[in-house]
C-alpha cells in the first residue's frame, strides 16, 4: 500500500488527472494478454522523461515497485504488477519525434503504436520490418522491452536488430542515452542489447532510435499443402539453403488446419499434416522466378498441393486462413495458453511430435502453428481457466514442453519474453551459473529491486 504522502507526491509530478486510484480503474491495469491479474496500488500516466525520473526517485526513497506498461498486450506477464505498486502507463508518450530520411532512422517515444510507425515510414518509402501479431495495438516501448519478433523475423530479424539507440531512465532516476543514429558503436559495454529485452527490470525506456530500411517493392505469397510434416520441414531447409530467404514461412499443423476449416469453410484439406504459407518480397521482376523456384523445391520434397497467389484477393485469402487461427482455436475451449518455444529449424518435426505426445499424456487440447522458418513454434493449449484441475495439468505440461525444447537445442521463449509466466523455468535453460550472472546484473543496476519485481528471476531467489 502507498502512503497518502506518496500519492500526493505522485499527483504533484504528473497531475491529478493522470493518476488513477479507484478500484475500477486499477482493475483495468491489473492484466495483460495472459490469463493472470494483479491489482496495482496506483496508475501514473507520465508525459515525459522528467516526470518518470521524479517517479523513480520517489520509488527509491519510499521503496515501492514500478511496473512499466505500454498497451498491455504482452504474453508473458511482463507488465503485470505482481507485487502491487505503481503501474507507469507510457501510452501518453506517443509522439513520433523524427523520421530522418537521410540517415534512415526514426526517433520515437515508447508509447507509439508499432503499426503507426510502420504507416508513417512506409509513406516515405521506408520500412520497419518487425511485425509481432499485436502490432496494431502494442507499443514500440513494449516491443523493445520484450524484444518482440514476428513472422518476418526469418528474413529481417527481430526488434533488437532495429534498435540503434535508447534513452533510458535508470531505477534510481538518472537518464542515460546509449547508441544513437550511428550504425556502428562499440563504446563500452553493449547496453543497447542489455536493455533491449530487459522486460522493464533494468530501466524505463523513454526514447528509441530505430533503424529503417528501404521498403521492398513487392511481395508474392503461396500456400503449400503436405501429407507429411517431415516433408514440410525438409522444404523449409531446402528453400533457405537454396539461397532464397522468404520473408515469412508460416506453418499450421493438422489440428490447426481442421480447426480453421471447421470455423470458416475455406476449402483447406482436412487430411493434411501441415500447411506452409510462404511469402517472398523484393523487386517485382525477381518474384515470379523465386516463387517458381520455391514451388519446384517443395514439389521435390513431396508437397501435395501448391497454390501461388496471382492477385491481391488470392493473397488475402491465403493470409485469411492464417489470421483466423486465433478465432478458430478458441471455439474448442475459451482459454488459450500461447507458448513460444523456439528450436533449431530442422528439429521442428521432432519438437511437434514431442508436443503432441505431452498433450495426449496430460489429455489436453493442443494446436501448433508458428514461424517454421526460424523454428519458433506457438503451441497453444486450449483449456478453461475456471477448471482448476485442468489448469494444473496445463501447468505440468508447460513445464515438460520447455524441457523438451531445451533438450532439442532450443529456447523457452522466442519472442514473448520470460516475464512471470516462464520465470519458474528459466534455469532449465540458463543453468545455475547463467542465472547467477543475470541476477547479479539486476542487483547491480537496481539494488532496491524497484523495477518490475517478480519478473524473470522469481521462483527461486525472490528476485
Amino acid at each position, binding site marked *: 500500500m502507498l502512503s497518502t504522502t506518496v500519492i500526493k507526491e505522485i499527483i504533484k509530478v504528473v497531475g491529478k488527472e493522470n493518476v488513477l486510484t479507484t478500484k475500477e480503474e486499477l482493475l*483495468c491495469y491489473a492484466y495483460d*494478454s495472459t490469463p493472470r491479474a494483479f491489482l496495482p496500488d496506483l496508475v501514473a500516466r507520465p508525459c515525459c522523461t522528467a516526470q518518470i525520473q521524479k517517479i523513480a526517485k520517489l520509488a527509491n526513497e519510499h521503496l515501492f515497485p514500478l511496473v512499466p506498461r505500454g498497451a498491455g498486450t504482452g504474453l508473458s506477464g511482463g507488465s503485470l504488477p505482481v507485487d502491487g505498486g505503481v503501474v507507469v502507463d507510457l501510452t501518453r508518450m506517443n509522439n513520433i519525434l523524427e523520421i530522418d530520411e537521410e540517415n534512415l532512422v526514426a526517433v520515437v517515444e515508447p508509447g507509439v503504436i508499432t503499426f503507426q510507425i510502420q504507416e508513417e515510414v512506409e509513406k516515405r518509402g521506408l520500412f520497419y520490418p518487425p511485425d509481432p501479431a499485436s502490432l496494431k*495495438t502494442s507499443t514500440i516501448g513494449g516491443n523493445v522491452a520484450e524484444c518482440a519478433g514476428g513472422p518476418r523475423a526469418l528474413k529481417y530479424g527481430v526488434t533488437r536488430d532495429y534498435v540503434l539507440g535508447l534513452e533510458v531512465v535508470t531505477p534510481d532516476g538518472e537518464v542515460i542515452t546509449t547508441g544513437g543514429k550511428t550504425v556502428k558503436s562499440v563504446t563500452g559495454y553493449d547496453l543497447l542489447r542489455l536493455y533491449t529485452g530487459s522486460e522493464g527490470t533494468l530501466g524505463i525506456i523513454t526514447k528509441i532510435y530505430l533503424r529503417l530500411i528501404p521498403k521492398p517493392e513487392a511481395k508474392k505469397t503461396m500456400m503449400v499443402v503436405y501429407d507429411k510434416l517431415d516433408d514440410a520441414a525438409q522444404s523449409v531447409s531446402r528453400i533457405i539453403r537454396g539461397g532464397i530467404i522468404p520473408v515469412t514461412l508460416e506453418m499450421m499443423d493438422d489440428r490447426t488446419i481442421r480447426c480453421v476449416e471447421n470455423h470458416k469453410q475455406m476449402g483447406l484439406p482436412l487430411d493434411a499434416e501441415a500447411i506452409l504459407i510462404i511469402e517472398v518480397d523484393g523487386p517485382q521482376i525477381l518474384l515470379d522466378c523465386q516463387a517458381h523456384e520455391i514451388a519446384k523445391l517443395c514439389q521435390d520434397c513431396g508437397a501435395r498441393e501448391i497454390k501461388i497467389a496471382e492477385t491481391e484477393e488470392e493473397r488475402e485469402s491465403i493470409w485469411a486462413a492464417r489470421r483466423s487461427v486465433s478465432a478458430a482455436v478458441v471455439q474448442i475451449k475459451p482459454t488459450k495458453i500461447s507458448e513460444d518455444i523456439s528450436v533449431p529449424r530442422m528439429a521442428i518435426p521432432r519438437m511437434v511430435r514431442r508436443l503432441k505426445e505431452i498433450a495426449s499424456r496430460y489429455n489436453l487440447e493442443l494446436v501448433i502453428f508458428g514461424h517454421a522458418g526460424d523454428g519458433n513454434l506457438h503451441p497453444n493449449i486450449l483449456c478453461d481457466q475456471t477448471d482448476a484441475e485442468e489448469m494444473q495439468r496445463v501447468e505440468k505440461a508447460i513445464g515438460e514442453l520447455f524441457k523438451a525444447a531445451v533438450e532439442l537445442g532450443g529456447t523457452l521463449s522466442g519472442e514473448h519474453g520470460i516475464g512471470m509466466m516462464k520465470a519458474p523455468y528459466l534455469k532449465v535453460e540458463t543453468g545455475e551459473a547463467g542465472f547467477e550472472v543475470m541476477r547479479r546484473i539486476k542487483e547491480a543496476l537496481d539494488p532496491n529491486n524497484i523495477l518490475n519485481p517478480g519478473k524473470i528471476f522469481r521462483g527461486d531467489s525472490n528476485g
Partner: protein
Amino acid sequence: MDNKTIKEYLNRCSKCGGCQAVCPLYGETHSEPLVARGKLFLMKNYLDGNLELSPKMMELMSLCLLCKACTVQCPNRIPVDELVLSIRREIAHQKGIPFVKKNVFHHLLQNNGRLTLAAKFAYLYQQSGLQWLMRKTNILGLLPGELARKEKLLPRMNRVPFRAQVPMTLSSSKPRLRVGYYTGCLTNYVFAETGHAVLKVLKNHPLEVVIPEQWCCGLPALTSGDEESAVLLARRNIEVFKKAGVDIIITDCASCGSMLRQYGDLIGGRDARIFSQKVVDFSQLMGDVIDFKPGDKEVSSVVTYHDPCHLRRGQGVIEAPRRLIMSVPGITFREMKDPDRCCGAAGSFNLTHCELANRIGHRKTRNIVDSGAQTVITGCPSCIMQIRHQLELQEIPVQVMHLAELLSKTY
C-alpha cells in the same frame, strides 16, 4: 441475455487487446477502462461480486459509443455492445434512470403531442431572436462551459414537423410496392429536407408510400437501460405499421433502422418478427430491392461517404450507398480513411460527453479534409448533425448531406 450467457461471453475474452486498435474512445484517450477489454473485465468482476455499481462504475459503463467496432473486430466474437447494454439495464434497474432522461423517455417520447410542443419551443427559441440575444449578450457565457457548448449543439428545428407537412399516402401509377416510411424523430423535427428528398426519390419510382402516425423507435431509452419504455414504443410502432398493410418499411435513419430490426428479438412474437423482417434502409430499397433510376440533372461535386455505425455494423449495409452515389451523373467519389470509424455522435453521447465527442469528431473531419471531398454523404441524421457541427467548429467549408438529398438533386 441471461446471466449465464453473459458470464460465458465474459469468460471468452482472452484480453488480447485487439479492441484497442478500433475503439474510437481508446484511440483518443489510450485509457484502458474505456476499451472493451477493460469494460468486460469490470463486468466480470461485478458479476463475481468483486465490484459494486459505484458512481465510477456507472460513469465508465456510460462511456461507450455502442459503435460495434470492437464487436466486429473481436476474434472471439464477443458481442460487446450487447453486454454494455445489459449492464446499463442492470444499472437502470438498480439505481434508476437519471431524472431528465426518465422524463424524456416516459413523458416526451411516448407522447407525440408533447414532443411536438417541445420541438416548437426550441423552434421559437431560435426564431424569436432569443437564441441570438442569448448568444450575443454572452448570457450563455455565464453557463458552465459544457452547457454553453451544448446550446450550440441544438440543431435548427423544423417550423412544422415534417409529417405534418406531407400527406399520409402518396402514390405513383402502377406501384410495385407499398412502402411504409418510418421518418424517425430527427427527420420529423429537424431535417425536414431529408424527408422531402426521400419522398422525391421514391416518387420517381413505381412505389406507393405510406407515412402513418408513429413513435420514437425506442433506441435512446434502450441504450440508457430503460428497456420498458423501449418495448412500449416498439409495440406501438409494430401496431401502426401492421395496420398500414405495407410490403416493406424504410427509414432514412441508420440508428432507427438498427433498432426497428431488433424489435423481433426484443419482444419476440410473430408480429414483431414480421415487422423487423420488413425493415430496410433507404439505400437498400433503392440499391438492392428496386433499381434506382437517377434523373438527368448532373451534380458535379467531389464526394466522400461516412459509414454510420448503425448502418455498416448494425445492419451490414456497406456497398449499396456507395453504388448509389457513384450512379449519380457528374459525381467524383473519393473514399476517406477509416470511413467506418464512429463520428462521435452516438445518439446523445455528444451531449453527455461533449469534449470527448469533439476529439473523436476531429479525427473524422481530418479524414474528410484529407479525402479532398467537397461534400460528405451519409445515412444517419445523428451523424449529419455531429459531422456538420464538427466542420463548423473548425470552419471547414465542406457540405454534409443525406444520401437521399444527393439522389434527389438529379431530378
